[in-house]
């Protein structure tokens, strides 16, 4: 049904498929905080095309300087330590794209995100993908794949997880899932049942749109 995510573009360069899927979830004009915004390509797209009031937090000073020179509002900071200073509920959407696995305390970060944003979007590589499972089984070594290209000793990804693992964390943090997408072959996204076994085996990554648990009141099925 959702055959191919349309390729979003900003200043000529196509947006990566997972970023394009995130962009699609964001309503125009929203107040957005992009944590770990990197070189700012998603943020720039959101500001230019979706007309959002966008901010970024980025660990690498070099990336921050590039973002600001591009006209984006970005602060150098660390998701592990600097989220506590943001006031509650000021952002419509907080994005944590491909970053949670690199934080020291994913559960603290997730709770802070849920506090700061009315909704949050979290994307991460799925360590439960069959290729990774097979690689570990067959070689007996920590898998190095195209998505996770670092050797075990120099990877920034210190807290890798599977879709099933993330689901438990999100539930423990009192989040409820509004939307879940599977990233297939790093090329397209499609809706998934996050607690089914299939996506956890076949999706290379996942994107979740979450909201605070209080919002799920009146939804007994959650």
């Amino acid at each position, binding site marked *: 049904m959702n055959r191919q995510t349309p390729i979003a573009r900003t200043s000529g360069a196509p947006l990566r498929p997972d970023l394009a899927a995130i962009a699609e979830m964001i309503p125009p004009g929203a107040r957005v905080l992009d944590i770990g915004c990197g070189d700012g390509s998603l943020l720039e797209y959101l500001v230019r095309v979706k007309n959002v009031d966008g901010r970024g937090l980025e660990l690498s000073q070099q990336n921050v*300087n590039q973002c600001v020179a591009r*006209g984006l509002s970005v602060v150098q900071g660390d998701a592990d330590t600097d989220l506590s200073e*943001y006031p509650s509920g000021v952002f419509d959407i907080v994005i944590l794209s491909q970053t949670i696995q690199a934080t020291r305390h994913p559960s603290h970060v997730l709770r802070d995100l849920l506090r700061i944003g009315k909704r949050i979007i979290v994307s991460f590589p799925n360590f439960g993908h069959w290729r990774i499972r097979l690689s570990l089984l067959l070689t007996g070594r920590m898998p190095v794949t195209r998505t996770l290209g670092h050797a075990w000793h120099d990877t920034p990804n210190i807290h890798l997880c599977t879709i099933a693992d993330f689901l438990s964390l999100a539930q423990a943090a009192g989040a409820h899932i509004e939307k879940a997408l599977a990233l297939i072959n790093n090329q397209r996204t499609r809706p998934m049942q996050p607690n089914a076994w299939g996506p956890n085996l076949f999706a290379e990554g996942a994107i979740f749109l979450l909201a605070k648990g209080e919002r799920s009141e009146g939804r007994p099925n959650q």
Partner: protein
Amino acid sequence: MSDAASPRFFRPLTAPAENPGHVLELGPEQPLVLDSGKRLAPFTIAYMTYGTLNAARSNAVLVCHALSGDQFVASTHPLTGKPGWWNYVVGPGRPIDTNRFFVICANVVGGCMGTTGPSEIDPSTGEPYGLTFPIVTIRDMVRAQAMLVDALGIEQLLCVLGGSMGGMQVLQWAASYPERVYSAMPIATAARHSAQNIAFHEVGRQAIMADPDWKGGDYALAGVKPSKGLAVARMAAHITYLSEAALQRKFGRELHDRNALSFGFDADFQIESYLRHQGMTFVDRFDANSYLYITRAMDYFDLAADYGGVLAEAFRGTKTRFCLVSFTSDWLFPTSENKRIAHALNAAAANVSFVEIESDRGHDAFLLDEPELFDTISGFVGAAASVKGIG
């Protein structure tokens, strides 16, 4: 060097007529109400403008100068003949492009380049104010600038920017007149002057006051200048604007004009001769009493103190876009102080960017050729201009 070496000859520190810039005279009916409770009237604001104000009056950029700066941000200094202090940043095709923006820079209250300060004549006595000039604060400087911006018929400034004490004024502008500041760029600054910075200023002031030619501040009446004291103040301050690494790189232990140590107290080392030169040239363009007043204004600056000690409260509900800039080797206004402002702005949910630029040139880096600073300024101001629809 030659004039400064003979401080006995008093030379009035007023700009020669060839390029004095503009002057706004405010009469007794428009006093400047100071934080001290005193009123300054009449008073004069000397300022420069560059570029053209557009019909919508929406392209005005206010540049705030630092302690020893002045309104000659992008034009030849009338006393020294040197290029404007921020020529790299302001001008046609520069990061603050004067083909696009209308740039204003005013000499601060208490200064000595045409705006009313301690070296001006007190109309009530017919003599220079000297130490009878009231103590001024950063907020007083900003109040005076707001009166100038009013007089120019500008409702909102597209950007207010400045480094060091200029950055303090930017923060004060954003706190006092949030609706008049569309975007703000405080560079290499702090929301409060630290104990160490107050200490350095006190050394400078004591050097001036220890000069017998200071005469309790009344040196103008006696036809002398406390040049030695002011030069020492400048020498001490100048060290704080540099970094250990830059001093080592530039001077090391190199000797000045000699092959061997003199076994005396001449300027044996290049760094000594450099500092002496900095001190001596400074007295040609700066007034000693102004130096006392302006350093005091910086010492008194503590933005959070006006808001119950909580810096974020100074920016509560602000719609201003902020971009903070610091330099890695700046130990006078270190990254940590700038970051403190960024944290407060985050806590106020403000739109804020924060850039730290790698440089070994210390605090002075903001005045120098730093391409990363220029990219940051043009990116930030350019984004503000495009959101406001300024071509």
